[in-house]
Every structure is written in C-alpha cells, then in structure tokens.
C-alpha cells in the first residue's frame, strides 16, 4: 500500500474508480434527482409549470387509504424482518459452531434455493397456499378436511410467509459471517471463569454477532418494504403493499408526480426507520456488554 503515495499514483486511482462513479451518476443519482423534481410538479408533464408544489406529498400523507397502505407495508416488512432473522439465527449458529468440516457444504446447500428465480419462488407459495393448491388438495386427499381452507392465500399472512422464505439467505449469510469472526478463546475464557452456556451466549456470542443481525435486518427490511411481486401474487386486496399502488401510478392512472412522491416518501420513511433501528440496536448491544 505504501508504494502508491505519490500524487501521480493517486490520480490513477481516481481514474480507475471514475467509470463506476460515472455509471452510478447516470443510472442512480440523475434518476433520483429527476424523481424528486417530478414529485414537485403540478401537471403530469415533465416541466415545472407554475413553480414547485407539495400537493402530491400532502395527498400521500393525507389520504387515509395511502396512509393505511404505508403502515401495512412497514408492518409486513417489520414482521418479515423479525421472523427471517429469528429463524435464521439458530441456523447460522449451527453452521458457524457445529457444522465442523462440512461447513462449506452447508453454506452452499443453504444458498442454492435462493438462486432459483425469485418470481418462481414466490409463485411456488401461491401454488402451495392456493384454494385448489398443494396444502388444500393434499389435506383433502388425506381426508383431513372436507372443504378447502380459504384463509391460506390472499392476505398479509401469506405475504409474510412467502417473503420470510424468499429472503432467508440475506439473513443467514451476514449472521454467519459475524458469528464466524468471534474469537473462540473469549468463550473458553468465560467458561473457565464459570459462566453458564446461556450466560456466555447472552454476554459474548449475541452482542458480538449483532453487526450481522443489524446488517441482515437492513438487507431485508429495506427491499421488502418496496416489494412488488409477492403482494401482487399472494397478497390479494388485503395484502397489497405500497409498491403495488406506486406501480399503478405509472401504469394505468398515469399520475407520475403522485407516484414519484409516494416512492420518495417510502424511501425517506424507510431510511429514517432503518437509521433509528441501527442506533437502537447499537445502544442495546452496548448495554448488554
């Protein structure tokens, strides 16, 4: 590293990272800036006629239907995040501490289902939970129920189950990595000093693995709040989420500024909640130690 301290050498570094920054400026920064501009326009046209307006934000925040959709999306995502992380933690713990030499095999096995088409993984749940689907036809064939259960599909529950399955790998991997990094001698020291296994877990393993838990929670909470496919396929009217209504603004109704305001509000709310979550989790970890 020390070899490249001359100014000329560093210029080459900026030149190397330049193309990536340029593409991101075009494909990320410019579109987001434009999205912001659109959210302030009065008409559905691209020009700022008659100055900027906050009407669309007022509508997003003011209308009961939109507010309910916001809360539902955040609630579903929070549930999904909690369920995914809680289910993945023991799994990651097992791989990190008890899988022995088959660790690599376990990791590959855990990630393979995650690489199959996202669309079809979600669709599989529609097939499983549907009125004439796998669970209902299976239970009926087994003579356990007389008529199909109709509460399995097209509700928020179906969305939570499906997303918990679809995002599992995003929880397992970060948690595994942070567990793997823990210095095993710390655990031995605690054992020698008389700490019980539970106390060791609560005072050493859990706090030290919190970065992985926080990372996993963010990687799941942020994208699932804006998920479109799952609520569209298995949510039904009661399980619809914010992304479904945003996409409608860009499809049929064609109110692009309103859609832009919704998208940016979602992003902002999610960012604030994510920031609060990280701060709270860090504080809790410090308190536990």
């Amino acid at each position, binding site marked *: 590293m020390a070899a490249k301290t001359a100014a000329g*050498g560093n210029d080459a570094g900026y030149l190397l*990272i330049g193309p990536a920054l340029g593409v991101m400026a075009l494909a990320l920064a410019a579109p987001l800036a434009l999205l912001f501009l659109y959210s302030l326009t009065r008409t559905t046209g691209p020009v700022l006629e008659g100055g900027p307006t906050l009407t669309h934000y007022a509508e997003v925040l003011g209308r009961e239907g939109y507010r309910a959709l916001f809360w539902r999306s955040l609630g579903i995502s929070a549930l999904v995040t909690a369920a995914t992380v809680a289910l993945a933690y023991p799994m990651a713990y097992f791989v990190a501490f008890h899988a022995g030499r088959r660790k690599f095999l376990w990791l590959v096995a855990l990630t393979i289902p995650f690489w199959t088409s996202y669309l079809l993984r979600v669709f599989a749940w529609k097939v499983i939970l549907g009125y004439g689907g796998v669970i209902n036809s299976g239970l009926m064939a087994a003579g356990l129920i007389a008529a199909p259960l109709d509460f399995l599909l097209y509700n928020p529950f179906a969305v939570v189950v499906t997303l918990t399955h679809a995002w599992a790998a995003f929880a397992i991997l970060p948690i595994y990595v942070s567990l793997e990094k823990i210095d095993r001698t710390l655990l031995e020291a605690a054992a020698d000093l008389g700490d019980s296994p539970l106390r060791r877990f609560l005072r050493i393993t859990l706090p030290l693995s919190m970065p992985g838990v926080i990372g996993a929670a*963010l990687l799941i909470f942020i994208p699932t709040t804006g998920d479109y496919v799952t609520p569209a396929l298995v949510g039904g009217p009661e399980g619809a989420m914010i992304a479904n209504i945003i996409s409608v603004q860009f499809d049929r109704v064609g109110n692009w500024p309103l859609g832009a305001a919704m998208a940016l509000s979602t992003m902002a709310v999610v960012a604030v909640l994510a920031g609060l979550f990280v701060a709270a989790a860090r504080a809790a970890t410090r308190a536990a130690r």
Partner: protein
Amino acid sequence: MRHRALALYAGAYLAFLYLPVLFLPLFSFNDSHYIAFPLSGFTLRWYQALAADAAMLQALSNSLKVGAVTALLSTLLGLLAAKAVTQYRLRGKGAMLGFIGLPLFIPDIVLGIALLLLIAAMGVPLSLATVVLGHLCLCTPFALAVLIARFEGFDRNLEEASADLGEGPLMTFRRVTFPLMLPGIMASLLLTFIVSFDEFLIAYFLSGTEATLPVFIWSQLRFPARLPVVLALGALILLVSVALVVLAEVLRNRGLPPDKTRIGA
C-alpha cells in the same frame, strides 16, 4: 444434547427452504393442468410445449443477452473500482464506496421508476439497452464487493517480483495479475449474470416491447392453462442456476486460504 436439537432445527430449516422450490419440478412432470394432489401420472409434454414456444425462446435469448452484457460491463467497472479502492489512497473513499453500494439499500421499485422517468425525459425509446442500464446500477455493487474481497487477498509482492525480474507492465498483467484475479473475475461474472438474469421489476419498467425471461414469466402467470409450462421452465432454470452457483463458489474459493473461504456477496 443441545447440539442434537440444533442439528434437528437445521434439518427442518433446510426442508423449509427446499420444499416449496421442489414443488416446481414435481408438478412440471405431472400429467394435469391442475397443480394439485393427487398426482395424475408422468409426462414430458410440458417440456415439449416449452421447447416449441417461440415467445419464450425469444425472451430467453433477450435475458441471456442482457445478462451477458450486464455481467461484462459491471465486472469491468467493479474490477477498475476495486483496484482503485484497494491499491490507492483515495480521499473520500468511504463516500464513493457508499455511493456505489447505495442501490442495495433502495427498493427496486424506486430504482425502476426513477430510471423510467430519466429515460422518458431523455426521449430514449425503451429497449434491452435501457434494461442493461438499470441492471448495471444493481449489479456493480455486487461485482465490487466480490472483487474487493479478492484484491484484499492479493499479494502485491508478486507483481513487484515480476517487474524486478524484468517483465514490462503488460506482461506482468498478463502473466501475474490476470491469472491471479481470474477466479474472482469469473465469480463476479457469474454472480452479476445471475442477478441480472433473475431481475424482474426493473426490467418490467424498462423493457418496452422486448420482454426478458422474468417479464415473460410474469405475463404467463395470469393464464392458469399456461402454468405447467411455466413450472417446466422454472425447473430448468433451477437446474441451470444450481450448476452455475456451484461453479461460482468453487471458483471464488479456489486459491484462497481455508479461513478466507466465504460465501455470498
């Protein structure tokens, strides 16, 4: 005994991950339009129907093109940026890395519509090229993450030794740097290809009349009669993805010391 309970849990968790996915191949061989038990017999007709489906084959070809171009470009961008980040002292490195990694923390729906607005404002017609632009935004952070990890394990003394022994920069790159980086480059190509190949929502907004495979699948999900054919397609995608992922992992971990063996992005 605590370990046995944990191992049992791990087995159950694996079943939870695999069972839903395995219904796709199971029902793709089932001789019925209805996806329900009991199974009605073995058939290959859904696969035959799939092979004869011109629209599907066109969508597949579109996705392969978009995936290949996205993989090449994002890996190239990632390679240059990873070299800059690991081997040079850059001011504002954290901010630059954060900016490139930002797409991971923005819902796809926002990325998709924002790009749609930009493309509409520029008056560019929607095409596979606009899908590639969207996918570059999504894939470059993955390429960068994989390649930075690879560069960090890279022993620069080897390059210096090559130079000391009289090789020019070009030959040093060809005979030392490139071969050492090759597993990382291949892993990045495969990862970004898979991410692009599987991406639905951004392609849905940006693809115009030329559907990618996920956009095509989405259009088919509305027709119950088409479902078994979609399942056959899903089973094939599953098979190929598994082969690619195993290949990517083997490549990425080759040559790294065992404690550096990692998985995922």
